[in-house]
């Protein structure tokens, strides 16, 4: 039985939600004013969080809403990143076009890897995505003429409205907000409802007239497309693309973000992405303060520690709090209302 926890909860708003609109406006104002009040480092981190929110929502569509396990998410981010970077380098297209191109490319590659595995019931998508992780890495590394091999590609600087980093921040945040909204509304449509029905019981979904294979494939490819958009943004933001960015560990990172934030929850994706992006930074700060020895030691110790903590977060949340941070918050708020 699928736990009730994973069913989408839609708040019922009977009257005009003044409080909620005020809340949204306040949030928008904070996001808008944020760069004015904080240093370059915080704007950088906020941009990174927003990009990771997009990627996490993509994985949440696949894993949380449609119940399909993908453990190669970062490979699809890589497809988007390389596509976006190549478009920027060779075609000189504007940022938004590159992002769309990255998303489209990842969507198609997702179809290629999803098609053989989603015909069959069971754990095969997880294995196929693992295969995708390694075969796409192989392509990134070996197709030197196009991808630049291990050295990767360096991407020309994008200057949005002449605002530099801050301009990029606004674009990313706006795009993340738009894609959040799109995902939220998707699950009020026939397609989104079909994904959830599939997750709950695929035979029943089929009886209701849902084409199981087509919708599973669509859910997976859509998740990949979000990954591709996030990848193209990462490429344009960091201005470098290389195979080291798209490892299995990166895929585990996003899986942890989905689980920690809360499966099948948009709010959860945002919380999870923010938590996972900021946690290593805080960890490093703590280690540098109280850790043993110099900075070299910290770096060497940090990467296995991070791996351990990512794994522990996945395990801990699945066992003790399957609804993630979103569920935790919902419960706290619910309690205070009573």
């Amino acid at each position: 039985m699928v736990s009730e926890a994973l069913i989408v909860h839609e708040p019922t708003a009977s009257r005009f939600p003044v409080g909620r609109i005020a809340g949204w406006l306040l949030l928008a104002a904070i996001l808008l004013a944020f760069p004015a009040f904080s240093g370059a480092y915080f704007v950088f981190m906020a941009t990174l969080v927003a990009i990771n929110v997009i990627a996490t929502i993509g994985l949440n569509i696949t894993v949380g809403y449609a119940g399909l396990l993908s453990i190669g998410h970062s490979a699809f981010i890589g497809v988007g990143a390389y596509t976006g970077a190549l478009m920027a380098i060779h075609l000189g297209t504007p940022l938004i076009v590159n992002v769309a191109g990255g998303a489209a490319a990842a969507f198609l590659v997702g179809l290629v890897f999803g098609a053989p595995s989603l015909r069959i019931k069971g754990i095969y998508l997880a294995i196929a995505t693992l295969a995708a992780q390694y075969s796409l890495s192989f392509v990134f590394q070996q197709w030197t003429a196009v991808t630049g091999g291990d050295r990767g590609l360096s991407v020309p600087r994008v200057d949005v409205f002449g605002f530099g980093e801050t301009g990029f921040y606004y674009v990313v945040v706006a795009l993340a907000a738009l894609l959040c909204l799109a995902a939220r509304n998707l699950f009020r449509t026939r397609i989104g409802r079909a994904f959830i029905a599939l997750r709950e019981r695929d035979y029943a979904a089929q009886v209701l007239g849902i084409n199981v294979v087509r919708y599973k494939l669509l859910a997976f490819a859509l998740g990949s497309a979000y990954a591709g958009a996030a990848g193209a943004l990462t490429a344009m933001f960091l201005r470098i693309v290389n195979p080291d960015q798209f490892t299995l560990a990166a895929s585990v990172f996003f899986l942890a973000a989905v689980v920690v934030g809360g499966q099948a929850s948009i709010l959860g994706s945002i919380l999870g992405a923010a938590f996972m992006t900021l946690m290593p930074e805080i960890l490093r700060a703590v280690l540098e303060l109280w850790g043993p020895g110099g900075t070299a030691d910290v770096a060497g110790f940090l990467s296995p520690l991070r791996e351990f903590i990512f794994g522990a977060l996945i395990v801990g949340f699945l066992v003790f709090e399957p609804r993630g941070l979103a569920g935790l918050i919902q419960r706290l708020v619910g309690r205070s209302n009573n």
Partner: protein
Amino acid sequence: MQILEYSLIGIASGGLYVLAALGFVIIYKASNVFNFAMGEMMMFGAYLFFAMTVQLHFGWPVAVIAALAGSVALAVAIDRVLLQRLIGQPVIVLVMVTLGVGSMIKGASGMIWGPDIVQMPDFLPRKPIFIGDILIPGKLAWGFLAVGVIATAFMLYYRFSRTGVAIRATSSDQITAEGMGINVRWIFSLAWAIAGVLAGASGIVIGALNGITPQLGAVALNVLAVVMLAGMTSVGGVVIAGIFIGWVETLVGAYLGAAWQNFMPYLIVLLVMTVKPTGLFGERQIERI
């Protein structure tokens, strides 16, 4: 002549995949969980052996027993502490837990033993073995022999012992097995314990050949290709598939280079999935939709 030598080396190294692949299959058969922590369990067994011999100066027979015991304890702990709490949840939750556990073991090993490669003491004879004028590295030959003995013992146990029958009964119909008085939860733990032995043993042999790093677990991804080709549920098929993949991989590595060698298993995975998802020897349990 060259190709014959590569072939023998390939077959021997394919033998090493068989143990780990058997570990995958036994857990999958008993409890339907696909264990993505298998590679890390192998690595953990190898590191335990290293700790016992090099760091604590025990003789290798003691170290083997201690490493296998530690590996079994880890496997049973994963099952008892985590997975059995989650029985009844969707399978993907269980699989995600194994992935998380794998990441934890890898991180913990990296913190304890560091990122660099460590070497085990030579407990397998180094002296190369000649067949005609074909040379096989001694460690590889003896490792293959050890693996062969363990795999045979496992298969006899699985085929003929009372508990082996109970595992197979559970895998073919869990509810009926429960009705016949088999304690299914105990069978799950037993399957994990056996997988622990297999993972530990194959980890020690692979570690003895190549040294140990926190990346040792990546071998398990080649094992994935073995399991897919054999068809997920076939114990006998795993032996053939393992040897075949080791052979193909070594030949590809010898003639096309290391990058292709690493890529090849995934090509096989995707090919099997596209052409014949049941694998070569799998039961026809696979449901198309």
